[in-house]
């Protein structure tokens, strides 16, 4: 199995965090919160946003119908959306079918632990209305969060 990149979006449609690995052999290669990924983030968000509205329309019974993964010819996108509007997204190769538990673990044991329970940091990175609706650029730079995430995901980067 190999993972290519990891993303977090909030309910304001902003990309809060992105991590891209470039060399499978080196788990510290690649970029964290790169400016160059802004455009990719918007495209990725748009793709998932559109597919989400389609799946919601196509589901017959009222309980929410969330997309779990999207497969393309080259990679697979795994999504985990929470009721509070956070999106956790992982792009991977095809070797493993589901990363649902991985994303759930990142949310409950890394994000909630280091970001939500960090009471002195703002709980919402969009500070004013001009940073909502996908226009915000603030990123998660919490050292504990990044370190815990890296060490959790490192074993999955190797091919």
């Amino acid at each position, binding site marked *: 199995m190999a993972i290519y990149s990891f993303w977090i979006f909030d*309910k*304001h*449609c902003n990309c809060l965090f992105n991590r891209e690995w470039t060399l499978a052999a080196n788990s510290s290669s690649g970029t964290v919160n790169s400016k160059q990924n802004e455009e990719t983030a*918007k495209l990725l*968000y*748009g793709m998932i*946003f559109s597919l989400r509205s389609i799946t919601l329309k196509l589901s017959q019974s*009222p*309980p*929410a119908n*969330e997309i779990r993964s999207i497969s393309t010819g080259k990679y697979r996108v795994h999504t985990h959306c*929470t*009721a*509070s*509007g*956070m999106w956790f997204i992982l792009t991977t190769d095809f070797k493993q079918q589901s990363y649902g538990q991985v994303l*759930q673990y990142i*949310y*409950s*044991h890394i*994000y*909630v632990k280091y970001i*939500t*329970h960090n*009471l002195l940091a703002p*709980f*919402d990175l969009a500070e004013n209305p001009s940073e*909502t*609706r*996908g*226009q915000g650029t603030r990123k998660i730079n919490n050292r504990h969060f990044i370190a815990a995430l890296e060490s959790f995901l490192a074993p999955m980067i190797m091919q």
Partner: protein
Amino acid sequence: MSNSSSMPAQAKSLKHAGEDIWKNRTEKVNAELFTLTYGAIVSQLCTDYERNFQKVNEQLYSMGYNIGVRLIEDFLARTALPRCENMVSTSEVVSKCAFKIFLNITPQITNWSHEKDAFSLILVENPLSDFVELPMDAMKQLWYSNILCGVLRGALEMVQLDCDVWFISDVLRGDPQTELRIKLNKVLKDEIPIGED
């Protein structure tokens, strides 16, 4: 309601999920320590605001709000529940999962409004107010557990439910029961990126 026949099964599984998470996946702390910590906060606020209990109520509410907006993420991480489709299922989740996991109590849900947009929670036991007896001057004005209203408001707002939450009665004030009212104002719209509409 079209799906009313499926409600009991759903409610049962929520109850089961709440109990399971409480039993197996929640670290426990001494309830007395918790009760006394909360008591210390309230008594400090009463001193700080020179026994202006209106102000104390407001301050407890806003402290609760700040807790609620974070606690919701903790709650969702533990339960992985999706959004509720209506207030009936919201009330079940609040009573059987949220109160169970965080306070180990299951308040009764009653007094539904005609439009099913408001309900009451009856707190038969309230761990915040164990050992508490209000002094005479606070009896009429202080809502001792007002932090709960703030927590509920903050948490519900984070799942796009704009609600008013307030106490109707409290055994500490000599009422027969402790009743907390939740009323839905509106379901907030999810944001969409600029240029999508």
